[in-house]
């Protein structure tokens, strides 16, 4: 019976491939002279911009994420417990909000430069240009590093400090132990985190729009919204999918060569106590990152929220937005994690290339710009709905209008298609820690099927599942295009409210929903992360 599990990854992959297929099918549609125009005028710049941005953000998040994970996983220093979870909090802040705050504070008209100009009485020509490639890279790094941090930290924790001690006993210094043992062992997790960052960077539209930094995704939106050519936009998006797919396959190859087993929790050695001097260094590094990635944007938003509080605040409505956001995010996190756990489990039970391929295909929804994916989901849905209502009209002579569309189910399904990748990496990472020997031992004790899943797999997967759930939750809270397009009438969320305010440039007004959104996003991070702690 369990053989039918074999189908799950394929089902999930099919589900994802429907919207992706809608997008890719445009490859053969005529798009007029738009391509010629793009190639002649903007494409070279866009590709260069996108390449450097992706590279910069991957490097930045890799460095920040891994170093922070290492410090909090291995060392002991004052405030470690607090920062262990506090460093995840930037996840709750949408990247475009961080971007807007950063520009508001540090650009020419912001308080920092204005104050410096008056103090120094100079033109401040030496001040670095904030609206620049470096600026976008820094902002995105600050917004996205928690993905790498989270996964790398899980890896470091699960290795146990034993491996490091073994390395030291073999005569490696601690530094060599990190580079020669811990880091290589954590590589699949780090790669997974960086992969998420890459997909998020490539799909981003909001952050680059605030900087007016043109990327490949900007071109997609331009073709669609400005040149009125959804087919040209879809063709560009198809290229993006293909590129990401190649990267996923490469990462897969790279990952396939490794297999890992973990040490049990009880084997964890004590944390290494840092010298006073090093403590200062580590703490000030962590505080700096945390300040710019989380505290500063939050302070600025709260400041704006208080200013605009009197102008527009309807508690009743905000409670409704909040309820919609939380219930959607919670349900989406639940079904996405159930689906991903089943996918990952069956891919493990039935190993093989096609299985792996199906599993990875199921994660590609994250790489598409949100609005393009939203259309990809919406088009077949509207078609299905049309067929269904025609059928009912014929059979029962009842005029039903649209049935499926505008139900929460569709929103949840769409979220799942988009965010399976986000929970895939932590859950898959956790699954890799269950060694075949554990399973063999369990089977030797007569455990099978469900029983074994419950007794062996789920307890070990728990932290991965919780991590995945928290990530999906905050991502759904922040999500805009799918929410906007598929929400039932009246189902406005906090993110919809942020959209309404920002689309007319009223950033200060957007602060109230943004702060509420961030606060609500903190809850699952706190809740789930506590559960993953020892």
């Amino acid at each position, binding site marked *: 019976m369990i053989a039918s599990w074999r189908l799950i990854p394929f089902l999930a992959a099919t589900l994802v491939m429907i919207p992706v297929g809608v997008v890719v099918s445009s490859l053969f549609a005529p798009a007029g002279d738009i391509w010629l125009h793009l190639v002649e005028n903007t494409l070279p710049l866009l590709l260069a911009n996108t390449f450097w941005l992706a590279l910069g953000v991957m490097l930045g998040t890799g460095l920040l994420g891994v170093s922070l994970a290492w410090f909090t996983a291995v060392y002991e220093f004052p405030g470690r417990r607090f920062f262990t979870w506090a460093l995840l909090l930037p996840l709750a802040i949408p990247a475009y909000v961080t971007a807007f705050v950063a520009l508001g504070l540090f650009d020419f008209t912001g308080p920092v430069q204005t104050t410096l100009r008056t103090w120094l009485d100079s033109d401040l020509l030496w001040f670095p240009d904030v609206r620049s490639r470096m600026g976008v890279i820094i902002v995105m790094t600050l917004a996205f590093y928690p993905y790498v941090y989270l996964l790398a930290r899980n890896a470091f924790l699960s290795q146990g400090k034993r491996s490091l001690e073994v390395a030291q006993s073999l005569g490696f210094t601690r530094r060599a132990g990190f580079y020669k043992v811990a880091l290589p062992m954590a590589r699949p997790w780090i790669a997974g985190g960086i992969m998420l960052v890459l997909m998020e960077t490539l799909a981003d539209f909001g952050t680059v729009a605030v900087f007016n930094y043109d990327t490949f995704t900007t071109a997609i939106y*331009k073709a669609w919204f400005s040149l009125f050519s959804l087919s040209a936009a879809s063709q560009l998006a198809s290229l993006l999918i293909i590129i990401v797919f190649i990267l996923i396959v490469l990462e897969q190859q790279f990952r396939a060569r490794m297999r890992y087993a973990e040490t049990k929790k009880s084997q964890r050695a004590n944390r290494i106590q840092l010298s006073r001097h090093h403590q200062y260094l580590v703490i000030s590094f962590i505080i700096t990152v945390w300040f710019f990635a989380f505290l500063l944007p939050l302070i600025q938003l709260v400041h704006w929220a208080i200013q605009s509080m009197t102008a527009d605040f309807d508690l009743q409505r905000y409670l409704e937005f909040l309820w919609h956001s939380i219930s959607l995010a919670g349900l989406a996190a639940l079904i996405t994690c159930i689906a991903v756990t089943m996918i990952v489990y069956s891919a493990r039970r039935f190993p093989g290339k096609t299985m792996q391929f199906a599993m990875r295909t199921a994660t590609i929804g994250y790489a598409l710009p949100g609005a393009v994916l939203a259309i990809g989901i919406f088009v077949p849905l509207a078609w299905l709905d049309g067929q269904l209502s025609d059928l009912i009209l014929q059979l029962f002579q009842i005029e039903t209008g649209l049935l499926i569309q505008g139900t929460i189910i569709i929103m949840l399904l769409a979220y799942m298609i988009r965010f399976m990748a986000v929970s895939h990496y932590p859950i898959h990472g956790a699954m890799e820690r269950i060694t075949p020997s554990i399973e063999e031992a369990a089977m030797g004790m007569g455990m099978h099927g469900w029983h074994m899943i419950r007794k062996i797999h789920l307890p070990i997967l728990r932290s991965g599942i919780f991590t995945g759930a928290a990530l999906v939750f905050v991502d759904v809270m922040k999500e805009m295009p799918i929410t906007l397009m598929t929400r039932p009438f009246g189902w406005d969320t906090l993110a919809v409210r942020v959209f309404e305010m920002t689309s007319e440039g009223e950033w200060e007004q957007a602060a109230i929903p943004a702060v509420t959104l961030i606060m609500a996003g903190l809850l699952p991070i706190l809740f789930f992360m506590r559960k993953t702690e020892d």
Partner: protein
Amino acid sequence: MRIPSFNFHIIITSFLISLFVFISGPVNAEQVVVYSARIEQLIKPMFDAFTQNTGIKVKYTTDKEGALLARLKAEGKNTPADMLITADAGNLWAAAQTGLLRPVESQVLKSNIPEHLRDPNNEWFGLSIRARTIIYNTNKVDPTDLSTYEDLADSKWKNRLCLRTSKKVYNQSLVAMMIAEHGEAKTEEIVKGWVSNLATDPLSDDTRAMEFVAAGKCDVTIVNTYYYGRLIQKDPNLPLGIFWPNQRNGSGVHVNISGAGLTRYSKNPQAAEQLLEFLSSIQAQKLFADVNMEYPVNPNILPDPIVADWGRFIQNNINLAKAGELQAQAVKLMDRAGYQ
């Protein structure tokens, strides 16, 4: 071994329940469904007034123009929407072009809305005017030096100009209307002139552009007037002045509209037409003037007093359908000119 399929059951059951709820829910004939790219707080007061007057409910959802158009197209004849509202003319033109709208023959609309602000084929109608004008730093610019949009391409404005990104539809419409007036070659020269006069890279929004002017990074910029109104209201001491270009010998100030059209497959076209006519009426036009410091399209209604203080101006009266028709051309032109 059992199959752990409980979650499928949940999904399927809830799916069936929701199906049932939707089938059995009463279909209220007296309601109009609106897809709006004009945001909620700028449209809800008018809907509320309409419901109060007529008892007809208005159900609406908001999204970006492009998404709403794609959605209408995908839904086809099954769309629940009766009306599409946008915040610019170009997208209404595109909606009409792809056959998403239906013509409305209404004397009320024709007499309330000036001819250049509605579709020649009567498929869409302007409801409020968004004027795009020149804002200058009052400490650094003598307004007599200002004359036209085209003049901002003159080298005397070198390093003195700030512009919002060319990706915003307001700038695309402006350039499209310039193409309609001057032709492509001359317009491209003008846009290139703007680009070479820029004091800093194009900015992400109008408010930012004005802040840069106020802070002295540049001297002039081009923005929609309601952004100016909002900024000046917040900080009346900013050294910003408003200038109406192209008045003397030119073609008038570039205006865009926020407007609406009825969908081709509207289920309730009478009520929707009633709403459309209401939106052009004195009562609703006053609300348009109040909520966002825009100009009413109905020439019989005075704008908000703050707005009226900025003075009267001659509008460009080329039909706004051109803004849609020439938008793609304008976007490509701006790309070629290096206007990001």
